[in-house]
């Protein structure tokens, strides 16, 4: 029964990745990244049993990934006045097709690596890998600095899911430290995006090309 729940969560995670690849509205993209945070909170809870430590970590992770980050990013988006990522490097239809290939690759990779703990759905590692790939792809293929920021968040989501599925007993201190780092990273990126829009009147990273050679 537990396995069924985790399976469904992971299918939703995969679908959210697919949606991320095909979406252009920034609000929706940010919302999807937050949804992933919530899904991963559920995964962490069901993967490591309901000990007080797991509940604490899931709660902190959920509030940071599901509430704090979306709020931060939405605020940045509002202050910078952007709605959607127009004309990305890779079109949305092509992004989806590349996404299929990435999903196949992560399935193959997940099946080959001897990861994943006993008792956890065998879909978790591939789904986490696919989420990572999606994040990297968003960073590479989108032009708006803020979308790239969301891409980083998605990458981190994937890594978190991977950790929850295959490691389990990372010391509390390290886990909280990593979360703090992630928080600061998103904060720094948000401020950077804000400064870039203030200075350039746009956040098109393709036009950040003064430095080369």
């Amino acid at each position, binding site marked *: 029964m537990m396995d069924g729940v985790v399976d*469904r969560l992971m299918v939703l995670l995969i679908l959210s990745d697919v949606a991320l690849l095909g979406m252009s509205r920034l609000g929706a993209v940010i919302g999807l990244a937050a949804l992933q945070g919530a899904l991963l909170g559920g995964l962490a809870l069901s993967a490591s049993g309901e000990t007080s430590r797991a509940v604490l970590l899931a709660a902190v992770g959920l509030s940071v990934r599901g509430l704090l980050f979306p709020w931060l990013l939405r605020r940045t988006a509002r202050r910078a006045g952007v709605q959607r990522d127009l004309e990305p490097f890779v079109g949305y*239809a092509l992004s989806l097709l590349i996404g*299929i290939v990435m999903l196949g690759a992560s399935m193959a990779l997940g099946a080959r690596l001897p990861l994943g703990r006993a008792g956890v759905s065998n879909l978790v590692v591939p789904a986490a890998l696919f989420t990572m790939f999606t994040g990297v792809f968003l960073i590479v293929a989108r032009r708006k600095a803020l979308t790239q920021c969301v891409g980083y968040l998605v990458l981190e989501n994937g890594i978190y899911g991977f950790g929850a599925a295959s490691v389990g007993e990372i010391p509390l201190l390290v886990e909280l430290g990593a979360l703090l780092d992630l928080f600061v990273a998103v904060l720094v990126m948000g401020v950077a995006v804000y400064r870039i829009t203030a200075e350039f009147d746009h956040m098109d990273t393709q036009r950040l090309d003064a430095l080369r050679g």
Partner: protein
Amino acid sequence: MTTALLDFLTALALAPLLPGVIARVKALFAGRQGPPLLQAYFDLCKLLRKSGVYSTATTWIFRAGPIVACASVVAALALTPAAGRTALISFPADFVLLAYLLACGRFFTVLAALDTGSSFEGMGASREVHYAALGEPALLLGLLALARQTGTMSLPSLLGRASPLAPEAALVGAALFIVLLCENARIPFDDPNTHLELTMIHEAMVLDHGGVDLALIHYGSWLKLWLWSALLAGVLMPVALKTIVTPVPLVGVTGVLAVALGIGVVESCIARLRLLRVPHLLATALALAAVAFILGVR
């Protein structure tokens, strides 16, 4: 066998009802009375009484187009089971033949359109082929995913065992619904109510047909709508419903009508997409089907 034959005949008889149902739903949403439910039958009768007009520039391909298109859909319908029952003809991997029969019908419609030498019809033909190239893989991948999930290879058993509670079937259902809308030229891909618009896909190809030919084309397209609705109903209907045994094809027809209802609701709620965005939506369908397939392979 007799039930399958009965299902088949019911489909042939009731297919023109579907556009009426959809139009009625849309009219309800818009607060209008709408055309009569049987309007499609009246249209068929009117067209059958007229004779065709053929340009001297066209060849036999132009005349063969509507006949082959309609015939291939009828053949495909023979492969399609009503929800939870057997089809008239069924064998392992019959869904591949189904996809190819549909493709064959499309191929001849496109050829007939190109045969007229009209640039407008040529444009419609190009769009039709473009979208089909994205829709067909989605159909095949989706059915393959179901085959994988249910462990069977023929359409009747595959649709009979698919449970919408499994994530794969739900994904395939979503993908098939999108492709259905595209294949049958419904909103958001095409607006069946407008005529002679530059954006049209299917209707743009059949502008030069008239009389019996046009009747065949319309009838073929309604049969195709019935076929797709039956497929979708088969995927999405709960297993408990599918196992109900009735002498008349009650469950199957209800399923098809429910899908028609759904189409009507969708058409009322959303607007037509810009043409450039169409491949995007079809790619989404393909992605959904692929996700279902990959989930099944695991």
